[in-house]
Each structure stands twice: as structure tokens, then as C-alpha cells.
């Protein structure tokens, strides 16, 4: 069997999960590689979640939240926005490629954007190959 990238997606309940839902109800086609975990807010996604996903076998981690300024909790997605550059800088030192971990924004009406991000990320992770875990 050929290898397929496994991507864990943490989607915020209020925008991005609904965006994904919209893509589904509109029967848009997207790569089936993202396993979605619904969280209440992208600000809930601790850096440890991303590391844990990689440790447990994910080849990539996608975090989607409301667009800046649109957070249901006013400030939550800004927390995600502040954490990600530092997390990615740390991951670069650890030899984790830039394209394996991504933070982006998808609103409840952006089913097409969700599909585009999922497809793009799947292809990028596919190009990187499996994430070889360390012993």
C-alpha cells in the first residue's frame, strides 16, 4: 500500500470547524488526509498538542482558527498567532520542516478556503514524506 500523509487538524468550533462543515454540506471535494479534532478555540491548542500529534504518528499538524479580529472569545486566536512563530522557530531547531506545521484562518463561510488549505497542506506534506520519529 502506498503511503498517505496523516495530518491532524485542530479546528476551532466557531469558524473553521463550521467552514469544514460547509465544505462537506456543499459536497466540495478535498484530500481525505486531515483528521479533524474540534477544539473550542485555536487559542486552546497548546504547543504540546502539536508535539504530541507528531509524537503519536502525525506527519503534519494543521491548526485553523477564526480570522484575526473575528475570534468568538475576542482574543483566543491572537494567542495562537503569538505561539506559532515561536513554536516554529523551536521546531526548526529540532529538524521539523516548516511545511509540516501550519496555522491558518478559515471563517464559517469559507468552505472553499478550507478545501484549498487542506489540499495544499496535504501535497506539501506528501512531498516531505513520512515524519520519521526519533527513538
Amino acid at each position: 500500500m502506498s503511503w498517505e500523509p496523516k495530518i491532524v487538524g485542530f479546528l476551532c468550533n466557531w469558524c473553521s470547524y463550521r467552514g469544514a462543515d460547509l465544505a462537506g454540506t456543499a459536497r466540495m471535494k478535498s484530500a481525505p488526509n486531515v483528521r479533524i479534532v474540534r477544539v473550542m478555540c485555536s487559542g486552546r491548542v497548546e504547543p504540546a498538542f502539536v508535539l504530541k500529534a507528531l509524537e503519536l504518528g502525525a506527519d503534519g499538524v494543521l491548526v485553523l482558527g477564526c480570522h484575526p479580529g473575528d475570534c468568538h472569545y475576542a482574543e483566543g486566536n491572537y494567542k495562537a498567532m503569538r505561539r506559532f512563530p515561536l513554536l516554529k522557530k523551536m521546531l526548526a531547531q529540532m529538524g521539523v520542516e516548516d511545511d509540516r506545521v501550519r496555522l491558518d484562518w478559515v471563517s464559517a463561510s469559507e468552505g472553499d478556503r478550507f478545501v484549498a488549505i487542506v489540499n495544499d497542506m496535504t501535497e506539501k506534506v506528501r512531498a516531505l514524506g513520512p515524519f520519521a520519529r526519533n527513538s
Partner: protein
Amino acid sequence: MGKLKVALYWAASCGGCEIAQLMIGEKILKLVEAADIVFWPVAIDVKYKDVEVMPSKSIDACLFNGGIRNSEQEHVAKMLREKSKIMISYGACAHEGGIPGLGNLHNKERIFQTVYFDTPSTDNKDKVVPQPKFQVPEGELNIPVFYDSVKTLHHTVDVDYTIPGCPPEERTTWLALEALITGKLPPKGTVITHTAKAVCDECLRRKGEKKVKAFYRTWQKVPEPETCLLEQGFLCAGVATRGGCGALCPQANMPCTGCYGPVEGVADQGAHFLGAVASIIDSKDPDEVKKIVDTIPDPVGTFYRYSLPDSLLRRARIK
């Protein structure tokens, strides 16, 4: 009841843990009253072969410091585990890999390249690097095999208790030794400290809302002595570190570096420290956030100073 039998060993460590063990001062007399030290390479002349012939589980407790960096350390760790009823991980290196654990950003090849070739003071014309086996007329000589990664003690053998710290504070060491001597040990797996809460809980500095525009290293600015160091932009690991040390470093105007390991229930100390630090960045502008993040030159060395081998990723991937 007869006297306890205690063994002490050092693996990939600096020797500071031995000094920390002696820091208990005159209490060491209470220790030797209650226990015979049967193995302690730094202080008494007992060889590995003497330990090898000891019956299984004949040592009551082993205090093991240092991470596992080579085959000798792994061998001795396994041997002492087999001979000891209680295995105690002593100090940050055994607990989480410690400072030598930062070697996990590299591998054997890169470390040897630096140590035996690239350092300016090295003169190695014949390109000699250590070989685990070497044939001489008298027979084969062996030295330990150097591993790519540092491992913690608990990734190598089953560990019963942990005494954290780099090195463990005297009061932490004694808390554990007293429990051992009096037979009042906590449940297996306990990290023995005076508190399971964070260093901040013991830190006397004034704590307010944290919003930071830039991070500083201690040489860049003199900290104000009464306000929380993190609020002042110093990367103080107190928020993500188990207390019990008495918050000594912040009291001396130095940020906590995280040597007591994660607080109870946290798997990855560095990720929690990183999350806490990033959350206090005072900006909503991605470009400004990036600029502020760039004031942290070495995230792994800062957030995982003692805990890289015990982190979720354990080591860097090297291609």
C-alpha cells in the same frame, strides 16, 4: 532491622550531584548511621566486578545521577537496577537528560566532528577518533560506545523515585533520604520535592499582568529586584517548573532555568514554557510578533535547557 545498603552512581553528568549529596552536611552522619554505602565510584574503591557478584536486589536503594550517553552507562544502569530494590533518579540529568541532553540537537558524528576536529585548539593531524575496539599486541582494548542520543534514566530502566534539580537542593535531597531511612517513602513514581506547584508559588516577587514587547537575556539588562522576572521580559522558567527549591534563582535576580523539571501532570516542560512565554507577547501584529520572537535566539536551549531527552520529540531530526 539491619543497616540499609545504598549505592550511588554517576553517568553522563558533571559531578555536581556528588557535591549536592555532600551538601546535606552533618546529616550525612545520620545517613551512614542508617546505611552502608556499598558502591560510590567518586568516593570509595568498589569495582564494577564487585557489584556484579552482589545478589539480585541486595542493594536497598540506588541514587543514580546522570543521563545515559554511552554503553557503559547503560550497562551500569541495568546492572544497578537489577541489584537494587529501589532505583532513584537523582538530579536533572538522570531525570530529564539535563545539560548533556542538549547534545540531542546533534548526533555522534557531529559531536565528534566538533570535538576531535573543529575546535580551534584541537591538533589532530592523524584524524584520530575514539574506537570502541582496538587491537594491541596484548589483546583487544574496549571503550564504551558513544550513542547518538542522550537518554534519561527512566527511558533506560524502571525508576521508582525522582529527586529533581541541577543539582538537587540540600533540602530536597534530605527530604528523600529521610523518607528512605525512616521507611516512609511515597508511592512509586513520585518526584520527591516539598511542593508539586510551580516555582512561582515560592517566588516572592510581585506578580501582575504580563505583557512583553521584547525578551532579554540577563547580560542585556539588570532586572528590577521586586517585580516578576517574566513581566520584565526575562525568560524565567518558573511558570513551567516544579518548585521545592525555594525559588532561589529569582531571589538572586536570576531567572529560573527550569532544573526541577515540569510541574505535576505535565509531559513536556519546554512546550509549556514556550506556550506561556508566547502568550504574554504584547502584540496583535504578525510582523511585530515575529520581531519579538526573534529576541529569543535559542528556543530549544531556553525552553528545554534540562529536558530535551525527556521531551515529546526527544531529539532533533538530522538529515
